[in-house]
C-alpha cells in the first residue's frame, strides 16, 4: 500500500482543521483509505495547531494487508509528502514531519505571538524560515495566500481554500479535483466562492511551482 502523508500547520482560526477535514472527506469519496487526527494547543486561544492526514492507496492488483495498512493517526517524523504551512513559524515548528523529498508550501502571512504584539520581541524575517525549511527538504515554496484572498475576495476568509488549491497543484494529493469540489459543495458554507477560490489557488499554484 502506498502511504501518503500530509501535514497542515498553522494557528487556531486559520482553517487548519477545515483543510484537514476536507481532504479526509474527499478521500472517502475517492474510496481510498484515510485516517488522521488534529492536535490542538488551545486552538481557540491562538495556539499552534496541526492536522495530520494519512491516505493509503492500493496499487493496481494489490490486496489489502493489515501489516501494510494505515493505522497510526499521527504522521511519523520524516514521512510527510506535503507540508501545508499557513503561517511561517508554524511551518517550521512542524518541519521534522516533512520527508526529505516532500513539498513544503509556506504562507508568508505572519500571525504574531503575544510577545511580538506587545513589542517585546521581533518576528524573525521570512528568509530565515525558508532557509531553515530547506535543511529538511529542497522543495520549499512561499506564497502569501492572505493577500491573494484579500485582493480577489476582500478579506482573508478564502485564504485557506486558496492554499488547498495550491497544495493540490503539487500533485502530491492522491485525489481527483472533482472529489475535492464535491466535498467543498457538501461541507462548506458559501460553496461557489470556495470552489472558485480552490480553482484560483490551483492555477496560481501551477505558476508558483513552475517558477
Amino acid at each position, binding site marked *: 500500500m502506498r502511504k501518503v502523508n500530509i501535514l497542515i500547520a498553522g*494557528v487556531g482560526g486559520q482553517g487548519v482543521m477545515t483543510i484537514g*477535514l476536507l481532504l*479526509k*472527506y474527499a478521500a*472517502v469519496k475517492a474510496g481510498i*483509505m*484515510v*485516517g*488522521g*487526527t*488534529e*492536535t490542538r*494547543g*488551545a486552538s*481557540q*486561544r*491562538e*495556539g*499552534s495547531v496541526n492536522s495530520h492526514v494519512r491516505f493509503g492507496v492500493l496499487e493496481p492488483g494489490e490486496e489489502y494487508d*493489515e*501489516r*501494510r*495498512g494505515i*493505522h*497510526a*493517526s*499521527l504522521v*511519523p*517524523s*520524516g*514521512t510527510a509528502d506535503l507540508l501545508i504551512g499557513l503561517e511561517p*513559524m508554524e511551518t*517550521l*515548528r512542524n*518541519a*521534522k514531519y516533512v*520527508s526529505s523529498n516532500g513539498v513544503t508550501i509556506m504562507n508568508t502571512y505572519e500571525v*504574531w*505571538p*503575544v*510577545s*511580538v*504584539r*506587545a*513589542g517585546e*520581541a521581533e518576528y*524573525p524575517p521570512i528568509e*530565515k*524560515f525558508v532557509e*531553515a525549511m530547506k*535543511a*529538511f527538504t529542497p522543495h520549499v515554496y512561499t506564497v502569501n495566500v492572505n493577500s491573494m484572498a484579500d485582493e480577489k475576495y476582500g478579506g482573508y476568509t478564502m485564504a485557506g481554500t486558496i492554499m488547498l488549491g495550491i497544495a493540490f497543484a503539487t500533485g502530491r494529493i492522491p485525489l481527483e479535483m472533482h472529489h475535492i469540489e464535491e466535498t467543498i459543495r457538501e461541507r462548506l458554507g458559501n460553496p461557489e466562492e470556495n470552489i472558485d477560490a480552490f480553482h484560483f489557488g490551483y492555477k496560481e499554484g501551477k505558476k508558483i511551482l513552475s517558477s
Partner: protein
Amino acid sequence: MVSDVALNEPGKRVLLLGNEAVARGALEAGVGLASGYPGTPASEVLDTLVEVAKEFPGLVAQYSTNEYVALETAIGASWSGVRALCAMKMVGMNVASDPLFTLCYCGVGPGGGLVIVNGGDPSCISSTNEQDNRYYGLHAHMPVVEPSNPQECKDFTSTAFGISEEFDVPVMLNMTARTSHSLGPVVLGELRPPKEEGYFVKNWGKYFSALVIAVSNKQKLLRNMARLAENYAYSTTLNKILEGKRRIGIVTSGVSYNYTLEALDMLKLYDVPILKLGLVYPLSKKLVAEFAENLEKIVVMEELEGFLEDELKKIAYDEGLSVKIVGKELFSPAGELSVDDALIAYSKVFGVEPPINPQELALKTLGFSSLLMMRTPGFCPGCSHRATLYAIKKAVEGKGYDIVWGGDIGCYANASLPPFNMGDFMVCMSAGVSIASGISFKSKKQKVVAFIGDSTFFHTGMPAVLNAVWNNADILIVVMDNGWTAMTGHQPHPGTGLSASGKAKAVDIAEVCRALGADYVRVVDPFNLRQAISVFDEAFKRSGVRVVVSRQECVLQSKRRMREIEAEKKRKGIEEFYEVAEHICIFCEECLKAFGCPAIVVGEFEGKKVSKIDLGRCVNCSVCKQLCKGCAITHTKIWRNTSILEEAKS
C-alpha cells in the same frame, strides 16, 4: 460527523471521530441512559449522544453535576434493567471511584449492561496528571476494553455492553486522547431502539451491599471475573494474533498497536508475531502461554505504566514460561508514544537500520528553536476572566499584600501566565478552595485567594466552600462565573438555565454561597471596572470567608448570539466600535501589557509608537476604554438611515 452518528443505514461507511464512534456503538447496543461530566478528551461521547437524543425516543442523555453523580445515575438506570453509559475523563474516574468499587460487587441489573468510558490523556494535553486508569480494572475487578481506531471504538462499545450483562459487572472502555480524537472510517451496524421503560426489580441480597452481603457479592464478582479470564478472554475476538515465525514477539493494544504495525512496515518486518489485546484486563493465561510458546522474548508496547507488562510477567511466573518480557525499559512511562518511538525501539530489538532517524530530525528542529517563539495560551479578546483578574490586580496594587493565588480547573487557569501571574498552584477540581483554606489556617501573614469556575463550583466546590465557612477559613473565593462549562465546549451547568434536554432551573451561585453560610457574598460585573475594583478592594480588607462572584458570559457564547444582533444593527444603520485616538495615546502600554488583550496591537502615528485596536478582533467589551490612563480610547456609535442611503445610491 455528528450527523452521521444517528444514520439508520447499516453497512454505510462514514468518517467518525473515536468519541463519536463510541456514541454510535452505544446506540447500536440500545443504550437507554447516558450520563457524564464534560472533560477533555472524553467530552464528545456524551455531547454526541445529547445531540442525537431527540431522534431516539427512550434515550435519556444528560450532563451530571460531577462524575460520581453521573455514575450513580447510570447505576440507577442499569438496576432498572436499562443499558447505561457513563463518560468521563480519567481524573473524573477518581471522583466516580467511590460508587465504582461497590458497583462492581453488586453488579448490573438484568439486561442493564453498564459501560464506563474513560478518557485518558497521555502527555497531559488538557489534564493535571496522566494517570493510567487500567489499574481501576485490576483494583475494582472490572473488565477493561481498549479500542485502537474508530471502527473498534464503535464495535467494542457494543461488545462491552454484552460482557457487562454476561458477567454481571460494569465494563470500562479505555480511550486515550489520541483514540478519542482520531478520525477514521466506520462501517455502521444496525441501530437498536433503547428500552423506553425500565423497572427496578428489588433484590436486597444484591444491591444492599454491606457486611456479609458485600463479602458474598465480592465472592460472586471474583467467580465471574475468573470465568471471564478463563473462557471469554481466551476466545473473544476483541483480541487477535498476527502470526509470524520470528522468535521475538510483540504484545500491544490501543494506539500502540497502530504504531507497532506502522513501524514494522517501515522496517520491512512482516514476520513478527503480534498479540493485539482488545480486552486488556483480565488476560487469559492460556492465550498468553500459547502465544509465548515458541518465543524467546516478548516486547510489550503500551502507553503510560507497564500494566500489560506486569500482567504478562505474573502469568509467565505462574505458568513457568521462560520467555523474557521487556516493555518499560524500551518505552517511556511518561508522555504519549508515537510511531517514532516504535521505530526507534523495534530497530534496536530486531537489529534493523530504520529508513528515517526520528531523533536526528527532532534535533535538527531544535537547532532552529531560536526562530520558534512560544505561543502562550491566553484569554480570548473580550474574555471576562481577563477583566476580573485585571480588576483584582488594580484592587491590590500598592497595598503591600503578600498574596497566595489558588488556581483551579478551567480557562481561568491561564491566570498563572503573564501578564497576570496569578496562579500559584493547581491540583484538581475545586482543590483551589480547600488548599487555600488549609494555607489560611497555618500561614497567617499571607492573604489567600482561591479562584473557582462556575461549573467547578457545582461539581465539587460546594462542600469546599461549606467546609471553609464551617471551619472559619480566612480566604477570598472568586467565582469566575461565565455561565457555561466553557473550556470543554460550552456544556450547560446548573447555573446556565439549561440541561441537556432543554430549559431547566437556573441556580444562582451567590444564593448558594449565602445558603452555605458565607456572610460576605458580592456579585460584580468585571466589565464595570470601577465597581469590580472597589468590591475586590473591600473584600481584601475583610477577614473570614469572602465570596465574590464575577459574572459575565463567556465571550465565545455571547459573540455567537451577538453575530445576529450585530447583523441586525448593521441593517438598521448602527455602527459601533472602539478605537485609539492616536494623537492622544501616550503609549503607556497599560492596555497592551498590563491588560494584554490580543485585540490591542502596536501601531505607529507620526513616527511614534501607539496602541491600536484590531477592529477585526475587538468585541466591544469596553474595558480598555475604562482603564486607559490618557483617556485615548474612544467609543463611537454612528447612526445612519441606511435605507435612505441605499435608495439615494440607486
